[in-house]
């Protein structure tokens, strides 16, 4: 499974989301490849992704996709990440 985290620069916020998503997935015992990318490369990077994690600001720019687009409010709240990932993948 592939999960893509998206932010404006592809560093910083998407990196934090990637690190915390990997932590949560380990706890949920789910194996996935988590990739951080910038919004400009979302089409290419997320073409084969099941889930896109991002902020509300990027939903429109991500546009049409086969992936589940999940909006995260607090990037450090692993409880929020766990609930939303479980809902999408469970």
């Amino acid at each position, binding site marked *: 499974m592939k999960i893509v985290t998206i932010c404006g620069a*592809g560093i910083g916020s998407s990196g934090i989301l990637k690190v915390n998503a990997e*932590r949560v997935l380990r706890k949920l015992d789910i194996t996935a490849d988590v990739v951080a990318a910038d919004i400009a490369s979302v089409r290419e990077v997320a073409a084969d992704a099941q889930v896109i994690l991002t902020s509300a600001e990027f939903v429109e720019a991500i546009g049409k996709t086969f992936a589940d687009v999940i909006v995260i409010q607090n990037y450090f709240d692993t409880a929020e990440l766990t609930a939303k990932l479980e809902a999408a993948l469970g």
Partner: protein
Amino acid sequence: MSLPSLPKSAIVIAAEAADWRAAVTLAGEALAESGAARPAYSAEMIRMIEEHGPYVVIAPGLALAHARPGPEVLADGLSIVTLATPVNFGHPYNDPVRVVLGLAVTSSSEHLAAVAAVANVFNDSTAISDLAAATSADEVQKIMGL
């Protein structure tokens, strides 16, 4: 996993900022002060927010200001600015911002270890309010695990 360099020169306590641009500029000036970025990096960070919106407010009260690696970045580094009066960035859930982190990275492929260290600190849900309440650079470094 180690945090990007955060010397005392990159820490500003209880700063006054009229708006989010001023707050991000302070974080950029602190990165310039510590030698992690050129002064023009502030404008790069502001442009990211103008272009993509206030998504850098990644948790209640905390903005992670950053731009891409580029000529304005001199070394991996972090700056921390706490605000005397919180400012709004226009974020739907996480305003107002009390703490601005400035992040400069030289290479996007190698930034993840640094970012993971930042995530470690803030996965402790009290870290943001502890930083906002800190009264010295020493205290800030201690909260950041240095």
